[in-house]
């Protein structure tokens, strides 16, 4: 089964995933009209700034077992067995924030949402774009990512690729492999600036 994979070393920090996520979870699902909706749609993936101001797309890992699910006394959090996605039922959510306290990654937010009853603040997090997937589309954050920091693939494929990357890096006589000389140069400059 395909899953969203995060490759932090490729994140250029453009935050396109956040815009695409908010749009995908709006009523109209078009950027321009989404900006005029009430409530304003919000992203469920959050790009953080690392030690060197490099980007990191922080999204729900859909843990198994999921601490948020265990912490939810209202039984609002459940797992879609087919996609292995952890979902929140906005009708059942009582906005108690127990899930957020239990979440090790800090990816659960509380606000009004297009899927929730009008005026009700609920817990909101990544749903792996289940609506889009039902329509044969891939998750919006992956679709918009130009640098492949987010991919949607079989985990076995991703693991094989990573295994090969590691194997090549420890080959005898191998020089340090730069994914992108341009990005490495920029990163070096930014680190130098920050280290002053």
């Amino acid at each position, binding site marked *: 089964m395909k899953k969203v994979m995060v490759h932090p070393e490729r994140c250029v920090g453009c935050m396109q995933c956040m815009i695409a996520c908010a749009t995908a979870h709006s009523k109209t699902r078009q950027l321009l009209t989404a900006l005029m909706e009430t409530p304003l749609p919000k992203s469920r993936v959050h790009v953080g700034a690392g030690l060197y101001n490099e980007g990191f797309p922080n999204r729900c890992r859909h843990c198994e077992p999921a601490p948020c699910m265990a912490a939810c006394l209202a039984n609002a959090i459940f797992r879609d067995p087919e996609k292995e996605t952890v979902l929140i039922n906005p009708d059942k959510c009582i906005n108690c924030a127990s899930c957020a306290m239990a979440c090790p990654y800090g990816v659960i937010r509380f606000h009004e949402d297009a899927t929730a009853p009008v005026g009700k603040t609920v817990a909101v997090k990544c749903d792996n774009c289940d609506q889009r997937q039902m329509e044969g589309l891939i998750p919006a954050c992956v679709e918009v990512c130009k640098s492949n920091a987010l991919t949607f693939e079989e985990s076995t494929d991703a693991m094989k690729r990573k295994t090969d990357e590691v194997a090549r890096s420890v080959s005898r006589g191998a020089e340090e492999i730069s994914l*992108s000389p341009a990005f490495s140069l*920029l990163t070096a400059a930014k680190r130098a600036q920050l280290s002053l």
Partner: protein
Amino acid sequence: MDQKFEDLTITKDGQLLLAKAEKDQVETVWERHRAQQPQCGYCDLGLSCRICVMGPCRVDPFGEGPQKGVCGADADIIVARNLCRMVAAGAASHSDHGRDLVEVLEGVSEGTAPGYQIRNVEKLQRVAAEYGIDTAGKDPLPLAGELAQAMMEDYGMRQKQIRLVQRAPQKRRDLWKKIGITPRGIDRETSEMMHRTHMGVDNGWQSLLLQALRNSLSDGWGGSMIATEVSDILFGIPAPKPTTVNVGVLKENQVNIIVHGHNPVVSEMILKACESPELLALAKEKGAEGINLAGVCCTGNELLMRHGVPMAGNHLMTELVLSTGAVEMMLVDYQCIMPSLGTVAACYHTKMISTSDKARFPGMEHREFHPETAEKMAVELVKEAVLNFANRGRTYIPVEPVNAIGGFSIETIVGALGGTPEPLLDAIKAGKIRGAAGIVGCNNPKIKHDYGHVTLTKRLIENDVLVVDTGCVSVANAKAGFKVPEAIEMAGPGLKEVCGSLGIPPVLHLGSCVDNVRILVLVSALADALGVDISDLPVAGSAPEWYSEKAVTIGTYFVASGVTTVLGPMPPIAGSMNVVKLLTQGLKDVVGATFAVEPDPEKAALIIRRHIEGKRKALGLSALDV
């Protein structure tokens, strides 16, 4: 002091006022910079293109995603086009500033700019003669009109080349002609740059960058040079004067007025009004001991250069200066004025006034200055500032000002040397002075405030490199105490001896950022005296904390004129290794100088010293291993 503030700025007044701003809940540029992290990697690499609406487009630096924009432009073309547009914007800004001065010059000639006058007739005649105008027996006013007309021609397309290009050494002009980058018209080169970067015009990244060189020269030897020369004609040639710097120049017991921006057309009139006996009497009546005018940014530098008006701070200090609560009025014109200032001022009694018909800001009252009415408007505004003194709340002016000497024009430097650059050349030949460096440019929250400027300057002077500075660097260096004659104690033995005998500091303040052209004139004079090209001289440029498009243009005209220049922050070009290589290596074979990028000022100092020693060796002078 809170460690977090020491991480942001090396200046004591900056650190203390950051704490005050935090207490007053004033948001600063550093917080907004933090909130912008991570900044978009595509944009930082120069790999995003918003030029046309088939896009916006991005090229994946990792090579797997899209490698071309919708139009087919690859990374080289996209990076080059973006950089070229930065150069065009910078050239447009300085050159438009110059245009405003030419209009005042014309107004003075026609008698429609009361309050302004020709302060230096000798310079008017000298520059007019350079423009091929017969000055014999002509009165200053009609001559000013003729010169203004001739300068206006420089902005258009009737000339084969911009007039003041002839100030460059013959070898340099021949080189520009050979590679086809002699600037033809000031506005023309900027227009052509914008045309070439339109979709489907110039898609040769090398030819685009050559036009960027020509465009920058149209600013350095055109618009900016006109701005400086006309300012000297209208307001006087700067001469060394004592002044003071840092936020301590604000006075507890006086009406404090700050000018911010770039054009002396506004600030000179404000200064005049501040000296008016009626307004001084009004200030006394209202309980203030006087009217204290201070500057921030380059219009402050313009006043410092000509009148010794004190400087309260540079670019990153502009918000913090207001958080003293001691400023009755800040008047701004244009360029580098953060649109946040109105919000900061709203926390205090400070009145914010915008003065230019082309620059408006939220939270400011707009009171337009025009040459016809500027004198009257200045008096009205200063009066309002005086009346605002009564509304002052608690103030916080936490430091004592530092002494400095500013106002070194080329005329006064050569004058101090006895009318010829020979003594300076002799000191360079003898190795007492290894060479010279122009340290210029802005502040940028990406670099610890003033750390780049002060560290680089310190390392260069202690190794006998004479430093000239302009713009925001000049304030940083003055605050660090480099601008008093006693600062020779921080210089190496050779520089100490030379500056000591002349009674000058080892770091000379040449003015505002348009005044970088004074550096071009100085290096031309040195090259001519030695019979070499500018690129043969043991000199270098640096912009350790640059942020603006204007700085890109300045760096480019330095390099195109033969001065190798080290940038602190990385420009948005790393997405194209071809462009990086051309700018940092390839340009050596084109214009005899290159860019380098080095955020660490300690390392930048080594790069500059190595470069200077290399040039000395090539000239047959004694050279050191660095």
